[in-house]
């Protein structure tokens, strides 16, 4: 029996066990939406395509499954671009469908036409423009495979309207044939032996664990390695939640706004064990002074990350979980405690600190949130100061419970991503922490949150300013605050009311103590507007071009 390619698309998604898609309809994607009409796959209608792609991203991060989103051609497709780039930078598996004008009109600047495969070439792991309808099932099969294996990433499929309407014989391929795509999972045995030897010999090892631990599901092995060799663990921002935030071996985050203990440990270590991390500039600061005394073992699934920014002594290309298992069988227990004593001294000498007195401090709110949820909530953030405070003060207990835009730093990511996470994990407590700036970038998705009856808890750290930029202007522009202070903001509590959800405005520690637990315990969506001190900065901070060992407080 023949069906349209659009119907085949829906069948393919069913075969891939896709439960939910996030999307926004339009002309060129019409045949696909018509095919969805008879499907059991849940469709979440967002209020802007950017919301769809961020929601699919949040869904993917929360569930570990491939996120799927759909938009129409032209503006629908371009509205996805930021979200695709975001997923690419953070290695999030997405399959993105866009409608395209009919094949005969492609290349003629027709209505709502844009070359989305051309535009997204540098920000997708791979993309397809479907010209032959019969190839669609093969392409979709390949897309899910590419998106979810190796180093995950977004794959885009652009589907011209006439192709979607073409009748084809449907058969979903069982295997994928891609001779140019064969990720390597098993680490090289000799390299693993070499790494184990270095680890056993090291006097001052530090484990530097990134988002790869979460993508590879290797949190258990990470914990086992750290405890086996008694090595302190620092997380990159993307790696947060992969190691228990309250574990004695945990140093906190490293880098630009990392803890001094983490940065000092890395600067003074003699062996840096980099696991699923990529030596990003926010982590390393001045590259020449990053871990200057250390031998480097680097485990990553992406060969291109190894040796990209720093010289590596033992490169291991492979799946971090498999490699860690092999390593664990070979390393010896380290009993020497002098290094850990030193680390402990740094931790005690340089704890994260702020003054909770006076105006309400955002750090206080995060600490309370951590206390109330016991570090067990899934926390989504936007981008900026509040994001760093979550990274510093929330003690994540469950792997994969931080949903945040790390690599691209996309303001406006928070709300739709939290929404996607909540869709994927309906039973899980999901809390969004967002700034007043970022919230206003995508706050139209409040309507989606309400429509989908999501019990999302949204905490706005409202300081009436773009805090991170303000902090940069204070440091680098002699406090000339240009275009950062909002002269007007909506009353967010009233806004919540407009959407039919409960709103709170919290101004003091006492109000937070009293009302935050109540707000978080509400059954439905809640908007919590915290009026916080605009003068509060993220500390410690490393000035541009400086070594991470030279952090300052500002």
């Amino acid at each position: 029996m023949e069906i349209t390619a659009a119907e085949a698309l829906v069948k393919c998604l069913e075969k891939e066990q896709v439960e939910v898609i996030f999307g926004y309809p339009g002309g060129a994607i019409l045949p696909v939406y018509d095919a969805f009409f008879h499907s059991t796959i849940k469709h979440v209608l967002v209020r802007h395509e950017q919301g769809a792609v961020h929601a699919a991203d949040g869904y993917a991060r929360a569930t570990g499954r491939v996120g799927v989103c759909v938009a129409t051609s032209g503006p629908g497709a371009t509205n996805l671009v930021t979200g695709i780039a975001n997923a690419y930078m953070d290695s999030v598996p997405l399959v993105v469908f866009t409608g395209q004008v009919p094949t005969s009109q492609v290349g003629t600047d027709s209505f709502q036409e844009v070359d989305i495969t051309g535009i997204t070439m540098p920000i997708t792991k791979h993309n397809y423009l479907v010209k032959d309808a019969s190839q669609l099932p093969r392409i979709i099969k390949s897309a899910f495979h590419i998106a979810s294996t190796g180093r995950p990433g977004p794959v885009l499929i652009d589907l011209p309207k006439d192709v979607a309407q073409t009748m084809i014989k449907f058969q979903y391929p069982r295997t994928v044939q891609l001779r140019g795509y064969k990720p390597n999972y098993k680490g090289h045995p000799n390299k693993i032996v070499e790494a184990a030897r270095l680890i056993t010999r090291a006097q001052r090892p530090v484990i530097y664990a990134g988002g790869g631990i979460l993508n590879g599901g290797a949190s258990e092995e990470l914990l086992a390695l750290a405890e086996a060799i008694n090595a302190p663990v620092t997380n990159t921002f993307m790696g947060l939640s992969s190691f228990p935030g309250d574990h004695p071996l945990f140093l906190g985050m490293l880098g630009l706004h990392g803890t001094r203990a983490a940065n000092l440990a890395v600067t003074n270590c003699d062996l840096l064990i980099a696991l699923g991390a990529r030596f990003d500039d926010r982590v390393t600061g001045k590259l020449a002074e990053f871990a200057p005394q250390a031998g480097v073992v680097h485990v990553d699934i992406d060969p291109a990350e190894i040796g990209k920014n720093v010289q590596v002594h033992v490169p291991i290309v492979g799946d971090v979980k498999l490699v860690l298992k092999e390593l664990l069988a070979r390393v010896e227990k380290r009993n020497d405690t002098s290094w850990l004593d030193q680390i402990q001294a740094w931790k005690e000498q340089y704890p994260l600190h702020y003054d909770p007195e006076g105006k309400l401090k955002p750090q206080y709110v995060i600490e309370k949130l951590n206390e109330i949820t016991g570090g067990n909530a899934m926390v989504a953030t936007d981008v900026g100061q509040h994001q760093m405070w979550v990274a510093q003060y929330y003690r994540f207990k469950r792997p994969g419970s931080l949903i945040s835009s790390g690599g691209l730093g996309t303001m406006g990511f928070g709300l739709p991503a939290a929404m996607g996470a909540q869709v994927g994990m309906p039973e899980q407590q999901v809390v969004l922490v967002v700034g007043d700036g970022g919230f206003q970038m995508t706050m139209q998705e409040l309507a989606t949150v309400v429509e989908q009856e999501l019990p999302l808890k949204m905490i706005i750290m409202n300081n009436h300013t773009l805090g991170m930029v303000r902090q940069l202007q204070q440091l680098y522009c002699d406090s000339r605050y240009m275009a950062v202070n909002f002269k007007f903001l909506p009353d967010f509590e009233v806004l919540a009311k407009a959407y039919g959800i409960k709103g709170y405005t919290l101004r003091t520690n006492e109000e937070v103590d009293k009302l935050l637990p109540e707000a978080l315990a509400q059954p439905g969506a809640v908007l919590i507007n915290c009026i916080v001190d605009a003068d509060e900065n993220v500390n410690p901070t490393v000035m541009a071009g400086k070594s991470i060992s030279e952090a300052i407080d500002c």
Partner: protein
Amino acid sequence: MRHTLAVMVENNPGVLARVAGLFSRRGYNIDSLAVGRTENPEVSRMTIVVEGDQRVLEQVTKQLHKLVDVIKISDVTTERYVDRELVMIKVSATPSQRGEIMQIADIFRARIVDLGAKSITLECTGNDGKINAFEESLRSYGIKELVRTGKIAMLRGIRYTGVQAQESE
């Protein structure tokens, strides 16, 4: 140092844009790029001449490998190889100058492919050095137009870099 890479790619639409885009956005310099089908119609071969030290080359190779359409990459510069380039040069030539130009063509084993009242067009194949010398020797006559294909290269002896080679190994 200059490296000559033989890059086997799926003969898919857009593959050239993917490769070229990768070089430009990561800031690698392409000296030349030649592309064409191989003995297998599904596979194209790109010969890319790239300038850079070992570190740059390693990154170029690794980043190219990340492209799903790239099947295989060989740095032929690390082995014994032959490389060739084709050039066509149109020079001003009055009938009285033709003789001299034909003598130069002889020396370089170039061929005359077109003759006009005031011009002569020659083709020549060879490696970089030969092509450059040929161009230099014609310069004084006035080069009106010049086009080079970019380098193509192949390993010497029985060793080969094709896709079949990979599959039979």
